[in-house]
Every structure is written in C-alpha cells, then in structure tokens.
C-alpha cells in the first residue's frame, strides 16, 4: 500500500524538477543569481487558482499563469539591469519578499492569510484529473516536456550565448551581442516554467496561502540547484530526488516523539553540509560562477 504515498512524493518531485531545472537555466547557465524564483512560483499558483475560481478553463489558466510569471521575469531583469553578483541576489530576494507581502496583505485579491481553499482539480478536453495517479501522469508529461525544452535551449546556439554571458558579459558585449536581451529572455523562460509549476502545485494541493512562497522555499530551491551542481540539468534532477527524499527517509527513523521534530532538522542540515563539504561544486557541478 506504499504506492499512494510514493505517488504523492513523485508528484512533488516532478513539480520541483521543473522548478529547479528552470532556476538552473537562469542561475547556472546565465549566471543570474536569482533568489526570486519562488515569487514566480507563487505568482503562477495564485494566477491559476484565481482564474479557475473565476471560471476560466484550466488549460487557459495554466498557460496564463506561465505567461504572467514570465512578464514579472522581464520586469525583474529590467529593474536589476545594472546589478550583478551578490547585489543582484539581494535585489531578487527583496523582490520575492515584496511579492510575498502583496500576497499576504492584498486581501481583496488573494484573501491574504486566509489563502485560497478548494482549488478544483484540472479538467480539459472533457476529462478531469481527479485521482492522484492520473495527476502523476499529468505532472510527469509536463515535467518531461519542460526538461526537454530547457535541455534543447541549453544545447542550442542561444544556450551557448547564455553561458558566455555568465562567464564574461563584457567580453560578449564587445563581440556585438545584446546581453540584456539574452538575460531577459533567459529569465522569462525560467519564470514561465516556474509559473506553470505553480499552477500544477496549486491544483494538486487544492489549498494555497502565502506561507508556501517565502524563506524556507527560497532556501530549498537554492540548495537543490547548488547541491546538484550549477549548469547541470542532470544535477538538478538528481538533487531534487535526493533533497526531497532525505526528510521522507528520516520519517522512518525511530525517534521519540518529543525530539522528533528538531532531531530530523538537525540530521537534514548535517547531510546538506556533508554533501557541500564533499562536493563543493555540487554532485554534477563542473562550472564555477566567478
């Protein structure tokens, strides 16, 4: 009777693979140290939830969620155009907090801390994805498509220019390339996939509130990409499995319930630090940022 639990985990992993691979496109391949990826995830989730609540058919809401997130992706790159490195990271972190506070306080639109319960299951072309197994297949298809598209982008001449932007932006500009356009395109693609991952998440969990899209989530996404190895799609996929399954494995550790909670967190932190010490560039990492 392990399948439902495993299916649930695989659905979450599928959604997080889309999130981390798309984050890697911006962070690992283009060198944009983006701590605001979770804001696109949240924007996608809320857009999709609110649109379907307003009667918009699921597929339309799903695509709009991605597009809406990628518009914010463009705005973020436009606003932080002059920044790089740590300063860009700080600005994007500021951006994700601003989005979080809007979700929390704009009660008129998002019901604020009350969140949005009862988000319906996706239905398109007459079939409704109700059981968790069919949802798994739906997520798997979207996940494979997303990873394939990002993989193609990275292996294309356009992807080569992204890597050049990461390694030496000035050196590339002098070769006549508009690196600003390259950066916002990369960020828009990355944000688009985060947006549709948000929609998949909202319609699976059926209840979202702002607390899903704040600090712990930012840390989780960043750790997965760094542990997996920047600029390595395989690294992000494998590390999503590793980082999400460790806490699950810890559930089976026989701990007395009084120390259960903190003890698991201690073990999780130690494993994370251990991996970093063993592979500072990440499991499959071969690229260093600066």
């Amino acid at each position: 009777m392990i399948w439902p639990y495993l299916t649930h985990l695989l659905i979450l992993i599928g959604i997080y693979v889309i999130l981390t691979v798309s984050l890697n496109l911006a962070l690992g391949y283009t060198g944009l140290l983006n701590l605001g990826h979770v804001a696109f995830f949240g924007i996608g989730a809320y857009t999709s939830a609110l649109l379907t609540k307003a009667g918009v058919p699921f597929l339309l809401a799903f695509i709009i969620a991605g597009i809406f997130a990628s518009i914010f992706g463009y705005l973020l790159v436009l606003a932080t155009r002059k920044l790089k490195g740590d300063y860009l990271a700080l600005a994007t972190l500021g951006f994700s907090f601003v989005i979080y506070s809007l979700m929390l306080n704009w009660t008129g639109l998002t019901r604020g801390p009350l969140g949005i319960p009862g988000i319906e299951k996706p239905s398109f072309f007459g079939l409704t994805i109700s059981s968790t197994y069919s949802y798994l297949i739906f997520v798997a298809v979207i996940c494979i498509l997303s990873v394939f598209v990002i993989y193609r982008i990275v292996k294309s001449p356009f992807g080569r220019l992204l890597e050049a932007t990461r390694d030496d932006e000035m050196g590339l500009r002098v070769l006549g390339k508009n690196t600003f356009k390259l950066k916002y395109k990369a960020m828009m693609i990355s944000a688009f996939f985060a947006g549709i991952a948000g929609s998949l998440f909202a319609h699976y969990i059926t209840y979202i509130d702002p607390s899903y899209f704040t600090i712990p989530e930012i840390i989780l996404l960043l750790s997965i990409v760094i542990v997996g190895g920047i600029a390595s799609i395989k690294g992000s996929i494998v590390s999503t499995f590793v980082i999400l399954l460790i806490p699950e494995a810890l559930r089976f550790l026989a701990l007395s319930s009084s120390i259960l909670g903190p003890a698991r967190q201690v073990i999780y932190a130690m494993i994370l630090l251990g991996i970093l010490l063993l592979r500072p560039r990440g499991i499959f990492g071969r690229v260093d940022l600066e």
Partner: protein
Amino acid sequence: MRNLIISVLLIGIFLIVGCVQQPAAETTEESVEVVEAEVIKVGFMGPLSGDAASYGESIKRGVDLAMKEMGLDNVELVVEDSKCEGKEAVTAINKLISLDGVVAIVGEVCSGATLAAAPIANENNVPMVSPSSTSPKVSEQGEYTFRTVPSDALQGDFGANLAYDRGYRKLAVLYTNEEYGLGFNNVLTESFAALGGEVVASETFERGAVDIRTQLTKTKDAEPDVIYIISNSPDSTVAALQQMTELGIEAAIFGSEGQKSPAILEGAGESAEGMVVTAVSSGTSGFIERHQAEYGEAPGPFAAQGYDAFKAIGLAVEQGATTGEEIKNALFGSDFDGASGHIVFDENGDVSGNYDVFEVQNGEFVLTS
C-alpha cells in the same frame, strides 16, 4: 547525449509508477485491509518543530494521557511532525494514510495545515479530528473533518459579548497575520460592532515578531478601553504584553485561548497580570489533576481537546469500528463527557462552544466563570 538519457530515464519512472500500479492498486487494497485488522493505527499530525511546537507538544501530552487511560492494547499511535505548514501536512497525511494505513488521525493543529490536509482525508475516507483548528472554514471541509474545539465563529461572538457585558465600549484588536488571527478578528469585530461597541483599532503582526511597539503605539493612540490579543505564537504574545507595560497602556487586556499557555505566563510575568482569557474549557478538574499527576504541570493549550480527540476515536474503536468509514459514522454518534466538556459532533463535525473565562491572578490562570 549521456545527460539526456539519464534525465529522461529518471523522469521516465514517473510514467511507469503512474500507469503500472493504477489498476493493480484497486485489487490489492481490500486484501491488505483485512490482514491488519488486529492492530488499528491512529495518526497524530502536529507541529513538533518550529515556532508552534509548544502547542504540538501540549496537545500530544493530552493524546498520550487519553491513550494511557483508555488502555486500548490494539491501538497504535503513529506520530508525524507537520510543522503547522500546509505542504508538510499534505505529505504527512499521505504518508500516514497510505504507508502506515492509519484509519483515523488526530490533527492538524493549525487551521491552514488542516485545510490543506482535509481534502486528502475525505478522498481516502479517513476521519481527521483536529484539537485546535478553529477557523470557521474548517466546518466546510466535508464529512471526514471533525474538531473537538469550537469554531472561532462562536468564540469570536462569545468574546465580543463578554467584553461588551463588562462595560467596555472601545475595542482594539491585535492579531497574528495568518488564518487563525484574521478569522477570529473578523468575527470578533463584527459581533462587537453589532452590539453597539466601537472598534477603534485593528493591528496585525507577523507570527514570531517580537517588536510590536508601533502597532501598540497606534493602539494606544486610539485610546481603547479593552485590547483583545489573538495569537498562536507565544513569543509574540509575550513581547506584546511586555511592551504594553513598557508603553504604559492602561486598557484591559483580553486574549483568545491561544494565550492560555504556561509559557506565556512564565515569559510575560507581571505584564500578563489581570489578562482575561476566553478559552475553550481547559479540562474538567479531574483531567487537570490527572494531567498534573502524569506530567507534573498543568495542561497546556488545547491539551484537553487533544485528549477528547483521541478519546472520541478510541470510543469508536471500542465499539468495534475498524475502517475509516466505520469510525467516521461512530464519531457522528459519539456522546460523552470529555476533558474539555460534553462532546457531541454536529453535521459539520463541530462541537458546540462552551467557553470558560480565566483571569491571570498572581501568575496563574484562575477560572472566574
């Protein structure tokens, strides 16, 4: 090329897992159920780490006491830490239902987490009895969602009447900016206004915030005669009470039952003196004595409700219910005197709201009415 093969391979197992066991699962489910009939597993889901951990532990003590007293040898408790967060609660409930095969669950503690987990409880016909999720929204989550704590819709109204009857006309509210705080605040302010009182201020703060000075300055400026604190974060409540003393705010202080916790008394000291707390019954004197005997301290917040949540399930099991559905039906029929008062579930799985009023007198919660 190698990378592509590996990544597609890794994701490919989704498909296999997705398709392969779909038909298979239907057939094996019944057979597994029969084998495990002897040991009945009951799940516990609540925050055991993070800033709401003190509630989780206090409820857990109530549940353990009930289990010990009922002495059901064929019931096993499976504990999961869901950190009062929606995503954790969904993962925990999935694990409890499908992996441990629990047939009933005590949890979750926080309203937000209960709302996230409720659809899965209903989908799998596993009744969920929450000892402390008081958000009015929980009543609409289907027939498998119960709670042994009255909805805020009732306590908000009760608190408003209590303040009004004691002659206060200018109310200020200070609440945590999340599900519990906002839900309670909406009901409280509505009822107080309906009674003819005036709501002069309604300030909010982030769970865990410890600098509430400016919110209190705004509140003091509005010159309320009573301030109602609604918070499920003990650290913030202690900070608010101390800063009220520092700012010399004279108004009377009321608190929702989240404030009835020994940790707050210990942290705030004299600043909590005179605070009136409307709380769900913290347990009959018998329960309090037995809790004192067992743990050497008075019951913490929602401990009595945790006790009753488990007891309701335990009684259903004693009457021979083994599957989730049978327990659910038995729960609708439960009618017993629990630690927090008489337990009868209405059609939404809610219990009627009987509240006690406590007042902090020289460092202790004293029952006043």
